[in-house]
């Protein structure tokens, strides 16, 4: 298993290992694995080595380097960084190179991180398996016959396969937490507004939130401390959140009241339920008070989500029209160019959601759909708030099942949408939630535990996550697929 981000940063900052060395290792791992894993959509070797070289030069000159000095990181390919293409795994953006970098990227770079590549995703982050990528699916490093989850499947797989210790994803309805659970890594969706969205290609603006993937809870804590904070480029960013997350490791759990969300247990695989109960028992042993809690409003989450997210997406994705950037398929006039470009450029799932959203916003239907969905959003928020009167935090499954096989749900959108039934309510409430690897099922597939907290409750959420990590023994679940193991270590 690869080194953690904090270990690498320490080695590089102290001059014992070079950033270039770590960058080359990551680039080589991408090169060896990508043929079968397809976790990465693009790399820029020169730019990466140049950035790593700068860190080494700073260390050599005795300059202060950041908390992520020389740490190779991967970015979900819906975040902009100058020098890298941003495709959103869509043909419509194929070859587009943004002229600016996302705020999260700037913050990571300022702390010394070195971007090694852009990772695969469901097109425009719409999906739960990464099968909707226009550039082919990513495979689950634990079992290559199975999906890594989605939409941030590439970032999850890159971390799970130890290509990088740290990656960023985006979570609109579970797109960080679900793939983290399915690949056995840590994945965090922060409180809405804690991390700037500037430079994240929008899917559903009111739900999207960037967060980290890592193999240890500590690395995600470190990364979130780096990327969070107010940004004057994002009006919805939260002013004043300053978390101390890394320091939560080992803080006692005595007296912490934790609720198991009853509704999230419905319809889950027995092995998943068993894992949640076992985790609850461990938390009790650590001193927490665990009990069951019912939040019936969350049952409505999926329906509301599939109105709000497509509605916002239908508007956010209008700009991909063949006029200014990306794909352009010429028509006889501008309207035909729009239609031809979008017909050729978008995949089926994206088209499906644009149509859903366009319909939901149309005149005469707005109140019945979008208006009603917004009311449900408020109800769900209230439901959580009610639960938080009796509990400090909540736990639940992340995904009703472990990783499923390719094609198993691809032909049935509704079955696919159900993958996110436990994760969507947090996005609607704007609350933080994360997935912590806890165990594996009988086939050796990882199972993650979801930890949920009230808005800006990140410190307590991480305290619980650290506790779960410790009780699980840490160190990942499910070993890499032997075929992947072979190419990764081949020639060494």
């Amino acid at each position: 298993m690869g080194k953690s981000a904090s270990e690498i940063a320490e080695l590089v900052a102290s001059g014992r290992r070079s950033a270039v060395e770590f960058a080359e290792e990551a680039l080589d791992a991408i090169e060896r694995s990508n043929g079968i894993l397809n976790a990465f959509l693009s790399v820029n070797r020169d730019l990466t080595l140049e950035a790593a070289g700068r860190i080494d030069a700073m260390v050599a000159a005795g300059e202060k380097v950041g908390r992520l000095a020389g740490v190779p990181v991967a970015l979900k390919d819906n975040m902009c960084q100058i020098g890298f293409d941003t495709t959103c795994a869509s043909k419509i953006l194929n070859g587009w190179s943004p002229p600016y970098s996302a705020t999260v990227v700037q913050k990571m770079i300022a702390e010394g991180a070195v971007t090694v590549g852009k990772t695969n995703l469901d097109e425009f982050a719409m999906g739960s398996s990464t099968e909707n990528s226009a550039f082919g699916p990513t495979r689950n490093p634990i079992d290559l016959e199975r999906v890594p989850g989605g939409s941030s499947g590439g970032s999850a797989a890159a971390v799970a396969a130890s290509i990088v210790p740290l990656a960023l994803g985006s979570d609109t309805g579970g797109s960080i937490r679900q793939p983290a659970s399915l690949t056995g890594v840590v994945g965090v969706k922060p409180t809405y507004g804690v991390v700037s969205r500037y430079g994240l290609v929008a899917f559903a603006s009111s739900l999207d939130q960037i967060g980290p993937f890592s193999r240890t809870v500590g690395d995600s804590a470190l990364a979130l401390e780096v990327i969070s904070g107010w940004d004057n480029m994002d009006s919805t960013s939260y002013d004043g959140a300053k978390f101390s997350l890394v320091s939560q490791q080992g803080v006692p759990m005595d007296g912490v009241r934790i609720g198991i969300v009853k509704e999230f247990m419905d319809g889950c695989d027995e092995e998943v339920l068993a894992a949640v109960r076992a985790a609850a028992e461990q938390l009790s042993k650590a001193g927490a008070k665990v009990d069951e809690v019912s939040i019936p409003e969350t049952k409505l989450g999926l329906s509301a989500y599939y109105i709000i997210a497509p509605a916002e997406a239908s508007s956010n994705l209008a700009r991909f029209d063949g006029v200014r950037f990306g794909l352009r398929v010429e028509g006889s006039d501008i309207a035909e160019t729009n239609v031809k470009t979008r017909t050729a450029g978008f995949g089926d799932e994206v088209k499906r959601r644009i149509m859903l959203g366009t319909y939901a916003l149309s005149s005469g239907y707005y109140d019945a759909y979008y208006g009603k969905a917004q009311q449900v959003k408020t109800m769900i928020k209230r439901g959580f708030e009610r639960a938080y009167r009796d509990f400090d935090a909540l736990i639940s499954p992340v995904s009703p099942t472990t990783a499923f096989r390719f094609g198993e749900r691809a032909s049935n959108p509704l079955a696919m949408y159900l993958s996110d039934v436990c994760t969507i309510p947090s996005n609607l409430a704007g609350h933080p939630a994360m997935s912590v690897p806890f165990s594996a099922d009988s086939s050796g597939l990882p199972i993650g535990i979801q930890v949920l907290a009230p808005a800006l409750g990140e410190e307590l959420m991480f305290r619980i996550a650290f506790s779960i990590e410790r009780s699980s023994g840490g160190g990942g679940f499910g070993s890499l697929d032997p075929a992947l193991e072979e190419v990764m270590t081949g020639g060494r």
Partner: protein
Amino acid sequence: MVDSETNQSPSAPSFLPEGWEIVCGLEVHTELKTRTKLFCGCLNEFGSYPNTNICPVCLGLPGALPVLNGEALEIAARIGLALNATVQASIFHRKNYFYPDMPKDFQISQYDIPLNADGYLILPSGVRIGIVRAHMEEDTGKITHLGGSSGRIHGAERALIDYNRSGVPLVEIVSAPDIASPDEARQYVTELRAILIAIGASDGKMEEGSLRVDANVSVRPIGESEFRTRCEIKNLNSLRSLVRAITYEAQRQVEVYTAAGEVLQQTRHWDEDRSITVALRTKEEAEDYRYFPEPDLVPLEPTESWIGGLRESLPELPRQRRLRLCDLVGLDSANDQIETAILPELYGFVDAALNAGVDPKLVVARASNELASLLPIPDGYELEWFSDLCRMEMERKLSSTQAKAVLQESVKSLTPPAVVRDRLGITQLDDDELMIQIKSIVEENSDEWTRLKAGEMQLKGFFIGQIMKKTGGKADGKIAAKMLAVLLSED
């Protein structure tokens, strides 16, 4: 409001057949004079080289987000306050439509909850026009069609887009359908424009598109309480177009009804060359804009103290100017001279001269006649030069004839009036010197003098002409006339 004897509404325009009246509301878009654009830091500047004031935000690049410009918000609220509207909590919506001048393919605009609501504007005539709302939105880019027939969309070979204007702050001011004639529409736009310039919201340049007017026009028989179908007229680039288009459209609709036809709800285009309105699209073809609250912006919640501060900072508005001038020159209501003197282009000079203590009647006269005839006043003609000129005339250092000549030359050559006077060698005769000259003219023309004394009053003009000739125009005509009268009464 109907006069029972003639069955004619007092404001019903005379060009319509008897018994019909116009119902008109105006939508005025004004570009705000901010330093930067509405949602990004790009310069808001007219006339820059195309596509130089652009960034990821106003180009709608993937991942870019809008952040509201505080200066634009302030100016928009000042507009509301100047229009007696309520400045209230509000939100932004997205108006979704595909068009290449709109980089995001949606426009961020305020929709059902605008910043300013329920105001009014009082025309110089005293008529009160309701203001339904004045809301913020972003401007689009600018498309230039090339090739084909004379730059029209249809048949154009290609189009160029300049995104410098994309994201420039706009305020749309929507009037109630209280406007009853083309002349009231003209008065409304003139007054509104003067208000916008007075509060520093806009430069009010219709020809540069910084002030754009759409007119909603319908007609109905006087006495009917329901509104009839209206048409929205676009492309009104001047006050002249506005007046002509409303006149034409009202006549057209009356003709349709008179012929037992039906007016369709349409958007119509004013064709200046042909002097007609032509249908662009009917309501059935109207787009569904799929409005929904802009999730990338937060609700605006103006505080009372913020609004109070803005209210206190409002300058003198045109209506107050009008009342002030009427008061100073002793009129009950404004005449044309006063309306001219309060024009945004002139009032700065008037205000400076009044503050310098010059006789208001003289200031209004010189501003509304001579200075107005020199519009547009070039940059570089200083405010105090006009005050100085008026003062010189008031102190009789210049005759009125001389004052007019000096003013003209002063504006033309951008030179202070005292310098112009010296350059032209103008010196005003003092009164004693003038009397000596007049007496010698009387002696030289004793016949005419006798006849004048006998009552041939038209000879007064002859003597004034002689005086002007003899003094080379340096005499003040009014004073010369007075002296002549004195001489006549003496003998």
